[in-house]
Every structure is written in structure tokens, then in C-alpha cells.
């Protein structure tokens, strides 16, 4: 077997061992197997990277589905894009596995948890490593399943189980779009293999209707998986899962698969500017929506969740303006700092004995110093302060947006202002001021074990230096990421002349950078002014009113969905089941039976009587019969007699 095929194999084996052996394998062995599988996988990625010579490697394991002319192979494709994603997945994945070893150590479902995590890694690797859309779809649905399993990990709680179900079903809605996209691709190109599809796509004109349909359908899939409007409401609910899950799945990897998919299909998207425009606006809207809701949330993980929604919006915004690399760049940096923030939040929650409400925290800085410092690093990174990684990726997106559309840029800037504000609000309220929790909590406050802090430190380091892979052009450093990825965009370049052309001169770019940093700094100062002393604690849920309450309650979008989709379908289900099915259709069926019965009762009536009536009926029968058969022949005979 080639090392490429080994990449998904190790997590699969890890899953099987931990899954089948659940309850039988000793507790100390479980994390070793789980983390080991992830680490081995990472090692394979590294090997594959070292062996990689710049041309895509396709490894076909077997023919998966062969029907008529359509042959879908179970094949992996290793190229620049999948390598980048694999590094993120296995790298961050390994760190989170390590973190979980400490975080979950008191949970009874310890082995199960690691099994699920490994299964997730396996699915995610399939998603990015597949050589065709259907393998991607396997991973696509597979990560959805793992997300379901992990969100519902503490399924005794009905709300958590509901959140898990909601996530799966919303994803399914998106998956349907993806599936339609796949059907359209088969119809259009006759194949699903990336290389063939993209090669054939070069023959299409920009703005071709079918490409529009394909890209749009695929984007619907991305909306579901990457929590974009209108399919984003599951992601905040998904915070019901254990925190490492939020970090791995709902921040660093799974939710970015939509971005991966679009980058992967960049040829198609470049062919369809209309879809790109749509993607950009959806991304922007999501970024703003997420940011506004994030302003008022008081649950530490919810803030991060909406922040994730918002950051994903930025990524799509970047993709929408054809800055594929920038989107991907942000995926990477976001993976670092958002995983860091989540894990840090996990560490805080760990310290707070499970409490997630920031109104009960405060003054944690001296108690859990490593967590606090790393958390601060993450916060700075996400706020876009140079030279932290978030600055570079976000700025690159903003630059492209500026060139594309000034209105978009200003809105995006507003978003980044809010981002910096709510993140620092979160930081100040959590770590500054005095402790507001109960005595038991205060007594229990402690720094997390090293298996948890080590990942924090590593991720913090990455959050700081991660931007180095993509310096802006004006710094006169090589943009490593762009260079590495450029073969991926060969198709886009050839089909869309707009792709990759930048008109901004250096002075404008300097100004743009300056503006975005300034905005972030103002936001931080603003946040400090409000919350920096730790006195100004957000009020209780009841005290909110007006617009603030609407935003705090997430614009009542969940309620809207309930009223527009969930409740009508429930009523429809009952109506169909009880009325249409039972009363109407079955009524007709039973009615036929009743009809026969009734007819029978009527027919029976005339056949009950005395001998005379029987004889009478018989005689009538005879007469009728005679008449029926004799009248014509009698008539004939008479005619012949007359003749």
C-alpha cells in the first residue's frame, strides 16, 4: 500500500480498535491508540508531502460503483490542496486528540469518544483526499454522522440529542444540494473524477447555465456543512458536544469543508461569476449576522460559535471574490486560533467545573495563567492585529474584497470591528475583574493538566507565526501558500481572465492595512473601556430589551424556522397520516368493501321469500329469456311467413 492509502487507514483502525473494544480496553491505552492513530496519519501526510513532486497523484483502490457508462472509482487524489487540508486535519486533529486525553479522562464514554474522533478523522480525510466528488460526498456525509454522534455524545440530555439531530438534518438539506450538484456533474461531464471534470470544464464559456446550476447546487451543500445563511443555526447548537469536538469539528476542520469544496471546484466557480457573487454576498451576510449575534452572547462557547459562523462567512466572502487562496489561508489560520480559543474555553470550563456562562467568571487571569495567555493570543489573532496570523489572512481577503466591491469591503470592515470587540469583551469579562462564581467553583479553580495545556501552547505558537506562510506581496516576502497552491488554479486561470489579476497599487494596500488595524484597535479600546475593569458585567437574560434582545435571541431565526418548516411539516405529517391516509384513501378502499357488503345486503333481500315469490321470479326469468331470444327470431320467422 502506498502511504496515501495509509493516511485514512490509521484513523479507521483506531476507530475499529477503540470502537469494538469499547469497555474492554484499559483506560490508559485508549488515548494512546486514538492519538497514536492520528499521529501516524500525520506522519504519513508528512511522508507523502516529502515524496510529493508537484503533480497530482491518483491512487485507485477499486471500482466502487459501476453502472452503465458511469464508473466511480474508490480513489484518492493527493495534490497541493489536499496536502494543505491534510496537514490541518491531522495536525490540529492530533493536538486535539492529545487535549481530549486530559479533558475527557473522567467521562465514562472515554473509549467511545476516541473512537468517534478517529472515525471523524477518517471521514474528513476521505473528504479531502477523494479523487472524485462521490468520495468527497462519503466524507461529507461521514463527518456529518460523526458530528451527530459527537454533538449527541452526552445524549442523556434531550436538548443535546436534539441539537445533534438538528445538525444532521440541516446538513442533510445541504447534502441534497450537493447530491443534485453531483447528478448535474454526471449529466454534464459524464464523470465525477476531478481531473476529468476540470479538464472538460475548460471547454465551457463563462456564465454557462449548467455550470451555474452545478456551482449553485454544490454551494447549497457548502451552506449546510459550513453553516452559512440560511443553514447556519445548527452550529451554535452544536456546542452541546464536548469542547474538543467543538474545536476540531465545529471550528477547525469539518465546517471548512465547504471552503475546501469550492476551492477544489474553483474551475467551475470561476466559470460562473453569478454564483461567485452570490457566494460573496451570502458569506458577507453570514459574517455580519454571526458577528452581531456574537456581540451579546454570554455563553463562552456560544460566542466562539457565532464567531466561527462569522469567520466562515469571511472565508466565503474571499472565495466569492475569487480569492481562493486567501479563503484557504484563512481556513488554516482560523484552524489554529479558533481551535486554540475553543480549547482554551474548554480549559476555562474545566476549571469552572463545567460552567460556561461568562457572567459567572471573571478574574481568572492569575488562576489559570497558561490558559489565559494562550487565550489572549487567540483573541489577538482573530481580531486581526499584526503580526499575528489572523491579520494576514483576513487582510488578504479584505484587500481582494476592496478591489471587487467597495460596499462589501466597508461592511466587511464593520464585521471585523465587531469581531475584535466581542472577542475582547469575552476576554475581559472572563479573565479580568473579580471572580463572580460560587465558592465551590472558586475553590476548585485550577490549571488544566499538561496534556491539555501543551496543545494550547503549540496552537498559540502557530497562531502567532502561522501567518508566515502567506505574507502580503508588499512585504516582499514570498507568499508560500500561493506559490504552493498555484497549480490548483491552472484551470481557473485558463477559463476566467479575471482570475488572479490585482489592480491595487501598493499605497492603497498600505492604507487598507492601516485602516483594518485601526478599526481593530478602536474596537479593542472600546471593549476595554466597557469591560476592561471587570465591573461592567452583562446583565441577566431578563434585563435585555429592544433590539438587543432580538439580537441576543439570535433574531428569532430558530423560531422562524420552527414556524415555517418544522411545525408545518409536523402538522402535514399528522394530517397525511390521520386524515388523508386513514380517512380518505383507506376510506375509499374500505368503502369498496362496504359497498360490496351493502350490495350484498340488497341482493340478499330479494332472495328471501316464500316459494311463491321464488317461482314468480323464475317465471319472470323465463319470460324475459323467451322474449330476449325469441322476439328477434319470431320476427324473422313472421317475415318469412309473410313472404
Amino acid at each position, binding site marked *: 500500500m502506498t502511504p496515501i492509502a495509509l493516511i485514512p487507514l490509521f484513523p479507521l483502525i483506531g476507530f475499529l480498535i477503540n470502537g469494538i473494544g469499547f469497555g474492554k480496553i484499559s483506560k490508559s491505552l485508549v488515548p494512546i491508540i486514538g492519538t497514536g492513530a492520528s499521529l501516524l496519519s500525520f506522519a504519513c501526510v508528512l511522508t507523502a508531502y516529502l515524496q510529493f513532486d508537484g503533480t497530482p497523484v491518483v491512487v485507485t483502490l477499486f471500482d466502487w460503483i459501476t453502472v452503465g457508462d458511469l464508473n466511480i472509482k474508490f480513489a484518492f487524489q493527493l495534490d497541493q490542496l489536499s496536502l494543505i487540508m491534510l496537514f490541518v486535519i491531522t495536525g490540529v486533529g492530533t493536538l486535539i486528540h492529545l487535549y481530549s486525553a486530559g479533558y475527557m479522562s473522567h467521562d465514562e464514554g472515554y473509549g467511545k469518544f476516541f473512537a468517534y474522533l478517529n472515525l471523524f478523522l477518517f471521514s474528513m480525510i476521505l473528504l479531502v483526499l477523494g479523487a472524485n466528488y462521490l468520495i468527497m460526498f462519503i466524507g461529507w456525509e461521514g463527518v456529518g454522522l460523526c458530528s451527530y454522534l459527537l454533538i449527541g455524545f452526552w445524549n442523556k440530555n*434531550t436538548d443535546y440529542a436534539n441539537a445533534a439531530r438538528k445538525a444532521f438534518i440541516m446538513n442533510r438539506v445541504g447534502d441534497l444540494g450537493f447530491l443534485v450538484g453531483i447528478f448535474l456533474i454526471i449529466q454534464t461531464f459524464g464523470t465525477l473524477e476531478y481531473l476529468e471534470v476540470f479538464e472538460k470544464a475548460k471547454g465551457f464559456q463563462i456564465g454557462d447555465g449548467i455550470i451555474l446550476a452545478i456551482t449553485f447546487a454544490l454551494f447549497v451543500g457548502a451552506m449546510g456543512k459550513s453553516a452559512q445563511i440560511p443553514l447556519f443555526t445548527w452550529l451554535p447548537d452544536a456546542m452541546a458536544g464536548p469542547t474538543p469536538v467543538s474545536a476540531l469539528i465545529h471550528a477547525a476542520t469539518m465546517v471548512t469543508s465547504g471552503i475546501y469544496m469550492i476551492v477544489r471546484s474553483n474551475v467551475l466557480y470561476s466559470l460562473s461569476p453569478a454564483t461567485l457573487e452570490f457566494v460573496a454576498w451570502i458569506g458577507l451576510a453570514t459574517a455580519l449576522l454571526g458577528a452581531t449575534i456574537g456581540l451579546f452572547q454570554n455563553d463562552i462557547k456560544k460566542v466562539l460559535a457565532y464567531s466561527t459562523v462569522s469567520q466562515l462567512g469571511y472565508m466565503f466572502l474571499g472565495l466569492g471574490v475569487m480569492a481562493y487562496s486567501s479563503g484557504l489561508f484563512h481556513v488554516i489560520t482560523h484552524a489554529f486560533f479558533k481551535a486554540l480559543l475553543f480549547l482554551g474555553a474548554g480549559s476555562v470550563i474545566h476549571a469552572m467545573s463545567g460552567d460556561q456562562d461568562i457572567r459567572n467568571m471573571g478574574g481568572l487571569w492569575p488562576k489559570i495563567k497558561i490558559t489565559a495567555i494562550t487565550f489572549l493570543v487567540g483573541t489577538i489573532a482573530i481580531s486581526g492585529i499584526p503580526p499575528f496570523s489572523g491579520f494576514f489572512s483576513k487582510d488578504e481577503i479584505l484587500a481582494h474584497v476592496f478591489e471587487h466591491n467597495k460596499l462589501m469591503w466597508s461592511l466587511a470592515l464593520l464585521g471585523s470591528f465587531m469581531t475584535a470587540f466581542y472577542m475582547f469583551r469575552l476576554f475581559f469579562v472572563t479573565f479580568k475583574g473579580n471572580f463572580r462564581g460560587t465558592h465551590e467553583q472558586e475553590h476548585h479553580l485550577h490549571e488544566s493538566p499538561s496534556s491539555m495545556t501543551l496543545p494550547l501552547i503549540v496552537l498559540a505558537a502557530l497562531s502567532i507565526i502561522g501567518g508566515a506562510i502567506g505574507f502580503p506581496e508588499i512585504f516582499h516576502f514570498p507568499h508560500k501558500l500561493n506559490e504552493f497552491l498555484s497549480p490548483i488554479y491552472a484551470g481557473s486561470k485558463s477559463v476566467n481572465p479575471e482570475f488572479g489579476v490585482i489592480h491595487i497599487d501598493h499605497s492603497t494596500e498600505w492604507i487598507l492595512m492601516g485602516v483594518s488595524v485601526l478599526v481593530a484597535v478602536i474596537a479593542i479600546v472600546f471593549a476595554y473601556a466597557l469591560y476592561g475593569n471587570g465591573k461592567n458585567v452583562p446583565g441577566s437574560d431578563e434585563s435585555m430589551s429592544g433590539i438587543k434582545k432580538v439580537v441576543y435571541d439570535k433574531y428569532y431565526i430558530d423560531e422562524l424556522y420552527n414556524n415555517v418548516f418544522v411545525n408545518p411539516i409536523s402538522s402535514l405529517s399528522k394530517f397525511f397520516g390521520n386524515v388523508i391516509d386513514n380517512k380518505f384513501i383507506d376510506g375509499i378502499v374500505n368503502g369498496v368493501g362496504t359497498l360490496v357488503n351493502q350490495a350484498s345486503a340488497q341482493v340478499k333481500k330479494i332472495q328471501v321469500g316464500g316459494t311463491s315469490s321464488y317461482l314468480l321470479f323464475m317465471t319472470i326469468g323465463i319470460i324475459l329469456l323467451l322474449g330476449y331470444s325469441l322476439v328477434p327470431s319470431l320476427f324473422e320467422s313472421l317475415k318469412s311467413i309473410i313472404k
Partner: protein
Amino acid sequence: MLTLSLFIIPLIAGLVLLNIKNKGLASSISLVVSIIQIAVFVYAFSVFKDKSALLSFDKPWLSDFAIRFHLGLDGLSLIMVGLTVVLVSIILLAIKNLNYENIPKLLGLILLTEAALVGVFSAKDIFLFYFFFELALVPVYLIANLWGGENSSKITFKMFIYTVFGSLFMLISFVLLYMRGQSGDIESIKVTVSLLPNLIKQILFWGLLLAFSIKMPIFPFHTWLPDAYSKSPTPATMLLSGLLSKMGVYGLIRILLPFAPSGIQLYGEIIIILAVAGLVYGSIIAIKQNEIKRLIAYSSFAHMGLMAGAVLTLSVTGLQGAIFQMVAHGFNAVGLFYIAKIIFDKTGSRSLTTLGGMTQSAPLLTVMFMVVLLGSVALPLTNGFVGEFLMLKAVFDFNHVIGILAGLSVVFGAVYMLRFFQKTMYGPSNDITIKITDIGTKEMMVLVPIVIVVLLTGVFPNLILDISASFVNSLGVLNK
């Protein structure tokens, strides 16, 4: 001869079992029969490509009427017979460990059903097909009646009379055909069928369609199904949902497609719309069902709708998908009903409102349930996905709007199946579910093979698709 033995072994064994009382003996006989059947089938499978003559059995039956006792296996039949043989073995295994009275007779009746099903799936003569088609119902009817408790009599009778009513229309069609052709041979009728006058073609199409759509069932002929599935005892339900409903799809492919191509050209679209309407309709109804078996019943009905729609698109993809899905759904439905039975036996309840939290005391059951459930919500790498993917593609290619509507069932499927899962396994446990025990070796012996099949055919669907391809390619009535 091989096909004949596949038919005759369960027949004889079934008759023997009906006449013995000893439970142990009966169990071992049924086990032996299962093993022999599977062995014979595997052998038939191995000779399928090279020495297919071994698979055919052809003797005159009614020489005056040119009706022959002709059994044979082609790609489609091989798959269906294989499904029957394996699934019946699993059902037999499952039954033995359930608490039913009079197990030997139950096993015997199941074996008789198997014989009839093998007959249906391998018959090469229309009359033979018709006989077995009708006959397969009789033992199931008896099972439903004898082991079904108080109120099942009325419901199973409705099912019986409804489906027989449908198949009588098939008989009309066959008699008409037979009078025109003076032979019952399916292959030769295929050739001559285009010469028939229009009226006969019409009657043929509608008669056959009615028969098969009641059997499957297709909307709106389905109302016997929810009651029949939910009120019948589990063995009968397993047979009905896993195998008997497949006779309808099989009939569509084997009989209707080649016999009434002109009718399908004319009315195919309406039928597809009906089928997809049933798919969506059934899925929506399933969302709010609280009774486990009823929920699975509606889900089953929905799946059958998609199969019918896919077949009538007359595309290679649709047919392949439907054939694959027959196998997949067979296993999934049997698995689900078996799990429903386990849940009922352990808790005494089939209502979702009273269950919950079972995963805490029955993790193994949860896992098995999960895998079967994933199969039936068509998660990739399980068997459900391949069939559903191909069928949806076929319907989508046929008409984008219908295709997307059909695709909605994928979403709804997730909704009701996960609700089912959540309301039984997740959530806080209650008085009923707290003290249950997990499943043991007996149950695992049934569920593990199902799970293996679910995953194996999901990862390697070409195992089945390769065989059915030989049939589909030779069908010759498909749109290109």
C-alpha cells in the same frame, strides 16, 4: 437442477417441519436447510458465468396448454434468489430465539414462503410466476393469523384480499397474453408482445401495473401496508417487508417492462409521479409516527415508491439502483423490524413516547441499530446509499423537479429515522428502559450478519451491480 433444488429443499423441509413437534429438532433442521441453501446458492453463483445451463430446469407441465415448469436464473433472478436464501436464513435464525409458541410450524411456514419466493424469482413461465406470486402470500397470511394475536385477523385479511385482488388482474393479463401467444414462456412473449392489438396492450399494462403496484405498494394502493406491517407478528412483517414487497418490484422489472413497453412510454411519467408522491408522502407521515413498527412500515413504503419510480425511468442507472436497493432494503427492513422486536421484547412497548435512554443499558444494541439505521438513511459506505444514489440520479435525470422532490425523502428519512433512534436510544432513561439488559450472543448472531452485509455491500456494491448489469444490459427496452 440447482434452481430446482433451491426451490425444493425448503419446500420439503417446510412440509416436514409442519409435522414435527420437537423444537430442538426443528431448529436444527432449519439450520441445516439454511446452510444447504446458502451452499447451493454459492455454488450456483460460482457457476453462473460459465455453466449457466446447470441453473435451468425445464419440464412440460401442462402439455395441452404449452405451460412449462421452467425455472432458471439470470442476473436479476440470481440476486433475488440470493437475497431470499440469505434473508430467510437470517429470519429463521432470528425466529428461533424469539418467544413464539409452536416454533416448528412457524419455521416450516417460513421455509414454505422461501420456496414460493424462489419460485417467483426464478420462474420463466408467466403462469409459474403467477402461482408463486399468489402462493407466497398464503404462508405469510397463516403466520400473521396464527401468531398475530387478537386483532391481526382483520388486518391481515385486508392485506390478503387486497393483494390477491391485484394479482387477479395480473391473471387477466396473462390469460389474454396466453391466448394470443399460446405459450407462457416469458422470453418468447417478449418477442411477440409488440404485435398485439392496442386494446390488449392497454389491458396488459394496467392489469400488470395494478398487480405490482398493490404488492409493492405504490401510492395510493398502500393503505393495507401500515396496518399489516404494524399489527402482524414480526416474522410475517420481516417476510413481507424484506421479501414479499420485492416481488412487486421484481414483477415490474421482469414482466411489466418487457411486456408493456408502449404503456410505459405513454403513462410512465404519471406512475413515476405517483411513486415519488408516495415516497414523499410516506416519508412525511413517518415523521410523526409514534409506533415503531408503523414508522418502519411507512419508511418501507416510501422506499418502495422510489424503487418503482426508478424502474419506470427505463434507465440503466434506475434499474441497477432499484435492483441494488431491493437487496439493501431487504436487509435493512429485516434488521429494523428485528430491532423493533427486540425493543418490544425488552420493554414491552412499541411507543416512542414511552421509550428512551436505552443506550445506557444496551450499548451493543445501540451500535447495531445505528448501523442498520445508517443503511436505511442512505449514508455513504452503507448499502442504502448506493441504491438510493443511483435511483435518485435516474429520477433526477428523468425530470429535475421530480428528482429534487424525491431527494427530499433523503432529508425526511434522516428526520424520522433519527427521531426513532433518539426517542428509543437517547435521552434520559425511564422506569421501563433502565432495567433492560443488553442483547446477547443470540441476537448478535442475527444482527452481525446484517451489519456485515450493510457495510460490505455499501463498500463493494459492484459485487451486486456486476451481476445485475448482465441482466440490465440484456433487457433491451431501456432509454439510452
